[in-house]
């Protein structure tokens, strides 16, 4: 009895230790100054986000880039709540989407609206990522075409437009009306085919976004929208006003970008990332070096490095939570096996914990442990308990009573009996529980990306959001391999731990 109480006390102590360790990881030493920038889930935004990261990094302040967050609203809210300090945005998006209800007309009104919300924006970075018409630069030069109005003189041109642009009232119909364009040969076709067509010369002009990667690739000229038909989508940096107090040097850095990126440059950068598969980080650093003569000390995130990073995060999540689970669950299982009443309580509680959906568990835990690793580890820890507890319990219960009796007759006190007889004989069952837990843990750890703990879940979630099977597999395959490795590891441990005497088979079973 005394022994059991003591075990209980030790367990409680352990728990307290774990919690305090975890929360100290969270709290850190009084939150040192650090900057978090965000970006949307498309190439251009990620490149700009990397630039912000590099720029802020130049000041020596620790900077983090939350890449590929889900949509303007998410970033906007994250900025408002202070989860991020800055992100690249388009003034068009602010006017037409986020603040559409405000009916803002002028730049000044927009600035005012932002200020009311504790936000600031830089002057435009220099490019306007809106619809545009494009021609082969060579051809345009030949016919001296610079503006859309110039097209009026060439009714013989064949135009190719994406279906969307063809159909939308604010697409071709409106454009034609505004500019009174005379072309009759207008084809609706796939955007990629349009690029091929203009390259081969079967089309003379197409619609595009002003910073499409293909502009640089196919050497196109975007025609000036001289009648201001298309809405303006100027890129700006949005940041929190309090950054001007907290880290004025960072704001200064951000403002250096103003006016420094024209559409062609942006297109080229998009091209480098999309077609040449250069990492966004490299491209952003290259730009800063060339334009601002800034020597950026950055880390390239190749697929391999992403893999290494995710593996590290995943291993940390799994390693800590699984180890903690083993340390807690095996004693709990022993306790359960030795005391029926306590046993049914322990198993019930572990069962209840297991039914809490990960999402709900995260919601409950964020107020306690914040976001990132600690709540994820706590959740994984909790989810890993049941299989181990239950199998430890079943393994000990399954030991033939004659063997227990023989250990008692020898005079082994109960703790020694546990160590020398019961645990070795229950090894196979306990390890089976641990293996099950480990695999479930590796799988569930992928969910941790939901609360910013990274790991293989990152590419999986991105992949699910972007409907990109390649990205899903970039996370799913290593996760599966990791599960196999962890199983193999415990197979090895079993080879070491499982007493040899238990591996003698029934001879010649036939």
């Amino acid at each position: 009895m005394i022994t059991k109480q003591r075990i209980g006390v030790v367990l409680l102590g352990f728990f307290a230790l774990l919690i305090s360790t975890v929360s100290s990881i969270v709290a850190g030493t009084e939150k040192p100054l650090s900057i978090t920038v965000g970006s949307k889930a498309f190439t251009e935004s990620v490149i700009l986000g990397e630039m912000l990261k590099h720029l802020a990094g130049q000041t020596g302040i620790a900077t983090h880039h939350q890449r590929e967050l889900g949509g303007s609203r998410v970033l906007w809210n994250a900025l408002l709540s202070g989860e991020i300090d800055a992100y690249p945005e388009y003034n068009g998006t602010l006017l037409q989407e986020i603040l559409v209800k405000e009916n803002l007309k002028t730049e000044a009104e927009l600035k005012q609206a932002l200020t009311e919300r504790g936000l600031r924006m830089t002057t435009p970075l220099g490019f306007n990522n809106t619809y545009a018409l494009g021609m082969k630069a060579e051809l345009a030069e030949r016919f001296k075409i610079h503006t859309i109005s110039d097209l009026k003189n060439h009714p013989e041109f064949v135009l190719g437009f994406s279906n969307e642009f063809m159909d939308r009232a604010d697409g071709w119909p409106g454009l034609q009306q505004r500019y009174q364009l005379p072309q009759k040969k207008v084809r609706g076709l796939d955007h990629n085919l349009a690029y091929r067509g203009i390259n081969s010369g079967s089309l003379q002009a197409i619609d595009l976004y002003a910073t499409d990667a293909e502009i640089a690739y196919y050497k196109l000229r975007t025609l000036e929208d001289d009648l201001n038909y298309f809405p303006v989508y100027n890129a700006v940096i949005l940041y929190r006003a309090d950054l001007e107090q907290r880290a004025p040097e960072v704001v200064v850095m951000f403002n250096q970008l103003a006016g420094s990126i024209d559409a062609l440059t942006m297109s080229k950068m998009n091209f480098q990332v999309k077609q040449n598969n250069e990492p966004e980080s490299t491209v952003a650093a290259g730009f800063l070096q060339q334009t601002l003569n800034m020597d950026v000390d950055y880390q390239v995130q190749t697929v391999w490095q992403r893999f290494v990073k995710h593996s590290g995060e995943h291993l940390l999540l799994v390693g800590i939570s699984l180890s903690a689970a083993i340390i807690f669950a095996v004693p709990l299982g022993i306790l359960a096996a030795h005391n029926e009443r306590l046993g049914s309580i322990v198993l019930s509680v572990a069962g209840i914990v297991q039914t809490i959906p990960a999402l709900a568990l995260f919601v409950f835990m964020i107020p306690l442990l914040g976001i990132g690793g600690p709540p994820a580890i706590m959740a994984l820890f909790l989810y890993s308990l049941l299989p181990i507890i239950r199998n430890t319990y079943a393994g000990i219960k399954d030991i033939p009573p004659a063997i227990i009796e023989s250990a008692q007759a020898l005079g082994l006190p109960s703790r020694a009996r546990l160590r020398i007889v019961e645990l070795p004989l229950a090894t196979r069952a306990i390890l089976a529980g641990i293996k099950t837990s480990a695999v479930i843990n590796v799988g569930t750890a992928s969910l941790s990306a939901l609360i910013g703990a990274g790991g293989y879940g990152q590419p999986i979630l991105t992949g699910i959001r972007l409907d990109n099977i390649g990205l899903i597999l970039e996370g799913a395959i290593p996760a599966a391999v990791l599960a196999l490795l962890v199983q193999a590891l415990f197979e090895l441990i079993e080879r070491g731990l499982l007493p040899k005497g238990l591996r003698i088979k029934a001879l010649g079973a036939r």
Partner: protein
Amino acid sequence: MLVISQISKRYGDSPALASTDLQVSTGETLVLIGPSGCGKSTLLRLIAGLIQPDAGSITFEGSQLSSENIFQIRQRMGYVIQEGGLFPHLSVRDNVTVMARYLRRDARWIDSRLNELTQLVQLPAEMLKRFPAELSGGQRQRVSLMRALMLEPDLLLLDEPLGALDPMIRYELQQELKAIFSQLCKTVIMVTHDIAEAAFFGQTLVLMRDGHIIQAGPFKELAQTPAEPFVERFISAQREPMAQLIEALK
């Protein structure tokens, strides 16, 4: 040394041991005999504290057995369980020395004691590294005996310790054990079905039936003044086949 008074035990509604008194003094060898199922093993398990008596008490060197002192006392007992009870996951060596190592006895002492016992029970030394599943029945029984003797206990509880041995080894072991018991003044309670063995070891024989002690005393007494006809029948059950055998061997 050991005083058993008024002890009784039932399993469910079937009595295994009726109210029983028994005293064993230091250095005495007491042999329990009786029909299968009469409660011999039950008595030994009560003494070892493996099961709790329904009534009565057991006193070991003046102190009554209780859950506080049982671990202490067990370390001064050696018990050969009827089924052997070897640990399947431990080698022969580990089975024999597990308790000595738990008590942190000197490693050299353990080795030499192990050696001694191996020779005593005539177990080939290469078997020390085998596991119980890799031994023959008689070998396993000898390992159980080694394990019980290992820590030189004061009290030995032996439940048919030689039942699975061939007559040659059995005879030799009988001689050796008896010598050891008297030299080292061991107190022994032994169960056997071999009346000759009982007569050989026992200063006192205790004949049980259906959980009762029918008669206790030296072999001569049981043979010559049986308390009941049953005693005579039991004692002499082996006589006929033996006589035939001895006849044939002449």
